[in-house]
């Protein structure tokens, strides 16, 4: 990989742009594009969070008249949950860790001047941004945004007459997702090519930081998963607008024939979850890589079992494509396949457990520095355990009978796919902020933010498991109709107050972020005393990342507390090579 890559670098090098538009809007620089993705996700996460606030208020005070918005109707509640889920999954959990931090730091961490295809990179961001605008537009059209849930099961999502919001709003929803898929596919190609072709001399695959491994595997998952969702989205658009019947059998809505016949609602579910389950890993893998990194840096200790971590991520990615049917145990699919999907799903718990053990092994006998990124990494591990432990319940079809589509599922995936991933994003922000903006974030505010968020999110999502065991179904906009729900209202009320606390805590983060950009303490080039290549270059990094020279790598990414070394860390590009182990 030595000389050939230098040639590749020369081809991809592009001069720093001078005009404002080419520098900050239609930029080819992966660092600017990374920040664009980051701010898109930041906008999206506050929109998504606001929607969840409205949902929590509506559940407890259904008749409350809100300022400007008035009373929330039951169908509006369904719209809120649909848009909350869609925005959070696509425009936050997929966008921030991969598009944002991956774009910014993958090339720097592997010692490349940019991504392999800068124009494609720019294009993938702008298609994603367009997708977000289309999604937002759904709120403002006649009929409003759709109510079919983020999973969009047809026939509900395929027929305009099936409910309010299922007209133009639903068309915009599907279009937005299709656009998002196109952006994600372009981005995935770019990540894969960059990782394989653009590594600096000496940066072998097994010397890559685990963050790079995570982004690489995530990109492969994205390439295989988003293509399927894109096709499914196009078929759904055709069913909605061109009179086809891929997903719609002969049905009547309120006694009226719809003109469709012969389609299969289960086909959508297979296609959707073939994407949907790998999507869970697309959201969490970058956080796994990042937290491995943070635990090692701030325990001043090599990662425990680097190879095991890489193989665990690879097997999670591989098995992730064989478990989609566990979302469909109650769907009417053959009960025999349920058994097969269940075994695969339980098997995917094994690499997840390996990772957890290795994280504990990493901090064991370390020398822990409680910086804000480290707090979030430790919080991530706690949330990953809590969210992971409910997985083996839902993976067994027998236990899925009482638990499927209840709050137990909602609690499970929020803890692991939502909050744990978000903790990864927070950890990444606090960790890389000095490199991105040249200043440190405020540590005291960061600690407040951490503890409020950790306690708050547990208080919101842990009770959901209790609700689910008691049979409380999700996506219920009112708790008055079923008698057995009445006794659960106090728990729901508690969760709403916990949500207020958690949401309030996020404004500490927002304030800290913008305040520190302007007034934070000036950051040194390597404030955390970390070993990977982004800490060898200037802060913020120059246009070509390394100021005209290409780094050469001699060491693995996690050489901390090496016996005999002058400091407690050895940089990856330090020629004083660490003895082979």
């Amino acid at each position, binding site marked *: 990989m030595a000389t050939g890559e230098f040639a590749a670098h020369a081809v991809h090098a592009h001069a720093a742009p001078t005009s404002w538009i080419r520098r900050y809007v239609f930029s080819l620089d992966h660092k600017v594009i990374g920040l664009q993705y980051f701010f898109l996700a930041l906008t999206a996460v506050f929109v998504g969070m606001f929607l969840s606030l409205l949902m929590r208020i509506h559940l407890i005070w259904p008749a409350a008249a809100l300022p400007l918005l008035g009373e929330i109707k039951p169908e509006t509640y*369904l719209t809120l949950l649909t848009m909350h889920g869609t925005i959070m999954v696509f425009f936050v959990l997929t966008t921030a860790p991969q598009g944002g931090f991956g774009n910014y730091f993958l090339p720097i961490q592997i010692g490349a001047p940019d991504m392999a295809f800068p124009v494609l990179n720019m294009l993938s961001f702008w298609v994603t941004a367009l997708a977000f605008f289309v999604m937002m537009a759904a709120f403002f059209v006649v009929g409003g945004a759709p109510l079919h849930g983020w999973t969009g099961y047809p026939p509900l999502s395929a027929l305009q007459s099936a409910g309010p919001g299922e007209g133009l709003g639903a068309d915009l929803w599907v279009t937005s997702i299709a656009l998002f898929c196109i952006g994600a596919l372009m981005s995935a190609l770019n990540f894969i090519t960059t990782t394989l072709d653009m590594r600096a001399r000496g940066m072998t695959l097994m010397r890559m930081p685990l963050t790079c491994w995570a982004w690489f595997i995530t990109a492969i998952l994205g390439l295989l998963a988003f293509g399927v969702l894109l096709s499914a989205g196009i078929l759904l658009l055709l069913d909605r607008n061109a009179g086809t019947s891929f997903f719609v059998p002969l049905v009547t809505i309120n006694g009226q024939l719809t003109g469709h016949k012969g389609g299969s609602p289960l086909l959508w579910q297979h296609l959707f979850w073939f994407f949907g389950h790998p999507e869970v890993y697309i959201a969490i893998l970058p956080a796994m890589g990042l937290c491995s990194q943070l635990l090692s840096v701030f325990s001043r200790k090599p990662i425990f079992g680097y190879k095991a971590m890489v193989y665990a991520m690879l097997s999670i990615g591989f098995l992730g494509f064989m478990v989609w049917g566990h979302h469909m145990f109650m769907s009417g699919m053959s*009960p025999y396949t349920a058994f097969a999907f269940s075994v695969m799903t339980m098997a995917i718990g094994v690499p997840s457990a390996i990772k957890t053990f290795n994280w504990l092994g990493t*901090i064991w006998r370390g020398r822990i520095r*409680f910086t804000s990124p480290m707090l979030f990494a430790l919080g991530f591990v706690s949330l990953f355990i809590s969210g992971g432990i409910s997985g083996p319940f839902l993976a*067994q079809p027998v236990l899925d009978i009482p638990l499927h589509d209840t709050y137990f599922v909602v609690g499970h995936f929020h803890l692991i796919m939502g909050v744990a991933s978000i903790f990864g994003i927070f950890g990444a922000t606090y960790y890389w902020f000095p490199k991105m903006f040249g200043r440190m974030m405020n540590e005291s505010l960061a600690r407040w933010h951490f503890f409020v968020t950790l306690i708050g999110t547990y208080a919101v999502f842990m009770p959901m498991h*209790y609700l689910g065991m008691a049979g409380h*179904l999700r996506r219920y906009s009112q708790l008055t109709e079923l008698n057995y729900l009445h006794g659960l209202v106090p728990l729901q009320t508690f969760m709403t107050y916990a949500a207020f606390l958690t949401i309030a805590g996020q404004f500490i983060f927002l304030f800290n972020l913008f305040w520190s950009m302007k007034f934070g303490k000036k950051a040194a080039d390597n404030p955390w005393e970390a070993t990977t290549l982004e800490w060898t270059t200037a802060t913020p990094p120059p246009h070509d990342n390394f100021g005209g020279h290409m780094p050469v790598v001699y060491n693995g990414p996690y050489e901390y507390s090496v016996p005999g070394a002058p400091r407690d860390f050895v940089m990856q590009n330090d020629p004083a090579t660490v003895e082979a182990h």
Partner: protein
Amino acid sequence: MGLVLLIVIWLITFISAYFFIAKTWWLPVGASAAAAGIDHHFATTYVLMGIVFVAAQLSLGLFAWQYRERTPSTPKAYYSHGNNKLEITWTVLTLILFVGLNFMSSSIWASERFRPAVSDAVEVEVTGMQFQWYFRYPGPDGKFGATKPELQDPSGGGEAALGLDPADPASKDDVVAGTMYVPVNREIDVILRAEDVIHSFFVPAMRFKQDAVPGIAIHMHFTPITTGDYEIACSQLCGLGHYKMHGILRVVSQEEFDKWLAAREAEKQ
């Protein structure tokens, strides 16, 4: 900071675990033949996972506190890249735990879903539509009459909502009801249908849940073992009235069931 983190993580763990152990909120009392097996397996999974949960969280909190950086003069961290024996040990242990659990429960799943209902089971056709459940019994001839989509008229209630075809002789004695009556200790062969969108038939006390999908008829069976009224809910998002799509399953003695069915037949004549 290490101590604060230890206290917070341990407190979260103890409080979360307390409500599971105290069973403050738990599965509703089971009333079907399958409930005991499912609940038992739930409890097994829950004890095993509970132990893992508590052990992992407590070690996380403990390590964070124990291995904190105390003073700049504290010796360096332990330099180690891992331990293959440990890796193999915990890989094998979790594999046995997870896959073993799965095999333990597979016989319950098989008895629930791999075999069809027994031949003398009580047949009930359950149809979901926005936002109502209807229950149809085949009557003395043991045959369900034909239904036609073009005849479906939800405003007409019952038979009209299902689009029952009066021209079919088999439909003459079909009984359509808004409450699901079933006899106790008999296997019930449920035939699930949906007219418009996907619904899901959920009776928490019976540990029974199955989607009703338009275009297909899904057979599923259960055996109620305690008489009484049980709530039926829709568990698949079906539109704006999803939250109010519910019904009652009334489990009665065989005599009472026969009497009820006969009375409905008489009403039809």
